[in-house]
């Protein structure tokens, strides 16, 4: 009898259920990032100069950090601040379009549903860098409206390019959240004479709004960390400026660790609190609906 309980039975139904591999987790990034202890930032700060020391040669590590020190205000307030700005604009556009696209995926009209599904899949499954280049090349450098010429700077194109994959992922979050509400809620509303639109806006969406926030924040963190891709479009952000600064300091290889390490520290310091907050919110919402 005992042996049966310990899994030696030949009856498959008696075997304990074991999950193999990882389940897909819609908060994969923030759950990992948020699970790091806060002192990992200090570890990073200590390891980063140590790693730089390890590869030091003629041009000393001290010189490299001195160079970084001079560039820090520029890298932070001209560079990183711009990454934050790009991420905020891209998130704003991506969320607005994504919410609309997600609702279109729930339409009763087959054509609307099909088209919005196709758009979602296309942008969700394309490489971000490819999307960025497509937007860069497809959009003109300037547009003329009623004789007024408006230039479209590179960073605007970067915002548009980054907002596309965000849009597609928000679309899936909205669709998934609405579908997670039991169909009995729709029926109860229907039996009380609510129209489909009223049911969606007044009964279904308010219930799943909270559920959408943690995965939405997960995508914000991913987006923020993807903003250095814009350096490939020549947009002035932290990586572009770090490269330019290193060039100005005569391109010593010893500069690489301090400069890119600094960018890493900034991204970590920015995304870590977001991750912690997301995990805290998720925990709170999962207790009470």
């Amino acid at each position, binding site marked *: 009898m005992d042996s049966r309980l310990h899994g030696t039975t030949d009856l498959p139904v008696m075997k304990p259920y074991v999950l193999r591999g990882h389940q897909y987790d819609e908060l994969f990034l923030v759950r990992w990032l948020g699970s790091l202890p806060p002192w990992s930032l200090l570890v990073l700060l200590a390891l980063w100069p140590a790693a730089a020391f390890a590869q030091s040669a003629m041009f000393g590590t001290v010189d490299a950090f001195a160079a970084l020190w001079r560039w820090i205000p520029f890298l932070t307030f001209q560079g990183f601040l711009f990454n934050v700005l790009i991420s905020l604009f891209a998130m704003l556009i991506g969320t607005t379009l994504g919410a609309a696209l997600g609702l279109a995926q729930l339409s009763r009209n087959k054509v609307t549903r099909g088209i919005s599904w196709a758009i979602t899949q296309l942008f969700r499954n394309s490489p971000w860098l490819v999307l960025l280049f497509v937007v860069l090349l497809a959009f003109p450098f300037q547009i003329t409206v009623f004789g007024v010429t408006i230039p479209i700077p590179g960073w605007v194109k970067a915002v548009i390019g980054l907002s596309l994959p965000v849009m597609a992922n928000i679309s899936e979050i909205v669709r998934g959240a609405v579908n997670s509400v039991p169909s*009995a*809620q729709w*029926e*109860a*509303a*229907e*039996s*009380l*004479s*609510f*129209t489909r639109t*009223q049911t969606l806006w*007044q*009964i279904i969406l*308010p*219930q799943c709004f909270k559920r959408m926030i943690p995965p939405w924040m997960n995508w914000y963190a991913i987006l923020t960390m993807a903003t250095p891709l814009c350096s490939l479009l020549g947009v002035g952000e932290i990586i572009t400026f770090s490269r330019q600064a290193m060039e100005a300091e005569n391109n010593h290889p010893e500069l690489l660790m301090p400069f890119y390490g600094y960018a890493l520290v900034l991204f970590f310091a920015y995304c870590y609190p977001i991750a912690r907050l997301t995990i805290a919110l998720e925990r709170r919402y999962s207790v*009470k*609906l």
Partner: protein
Amino acid sequence: MSWTPDLPIVSLKDVHKSFGDFEVLKGVSLDVMKGEVICIIGPSGSGKSTLIRCINALNDIQRGSITVEGQEVSDPKLDKLALRKKVGMVFQQYNLFPHKTALENVMMAPLKVLKEDPRTVEDRARSLIKKVRLEGKEDNYPGELSGGQQQRVAIARSLAMRPDVMLFDEVTAALDPETVKEVLVTIKDLAAEGMTCILVTHEMGFAREVADHIYFTDRGVIVEHGPPASFFDEAKDPRTKEFLSQIL
């Protein structure tokens, strides 16, 4: 044809309903007069729930006719919203809106659907909550209420639309035995006030006490029906007898 109260308020004639190839209702006919309470009983899977869900057009039918106050429910041009204002429904799983308090649950449909004045709606909602004996629970969320309390809020929510007919779909089936009674008392009060009620239930004692007429369904047809006294004591069909002997 206009409807007058001397005609059946709900009338089903030869109703057929299939889900795919599976025929759930195979020609069901019944009439309910205004103010009557009828109970539909029968083994599970016999089509009882489907039957009452067809009455407020949550399910459509393939053949036959259903009328509510003379209006054909299976008419494709039917104004379903108008029909559902007349026919209230309470579900087995309560289905309250979890993000709204008890009072808000009751007020929501009259406010948003009927667009009535908020003050009158609130007064009516409070008196309905009192009626289902839940005074003091107005500001509680469904998650904070017991199953029986939630079900009574669901009844009040349905009544807030001032329906002419109430449908109850196994409303006590998901409840603890202790709380079944409080819900049944609420329904009994309603019946005593003259509300037309159509119930699907497994509570035989309750059916015997409140129903004016009992219908026994099995495999998609009505096998036998009659007033409770003759139905329970003088059942003729062997299927009815077998069912009653198992349950009583």
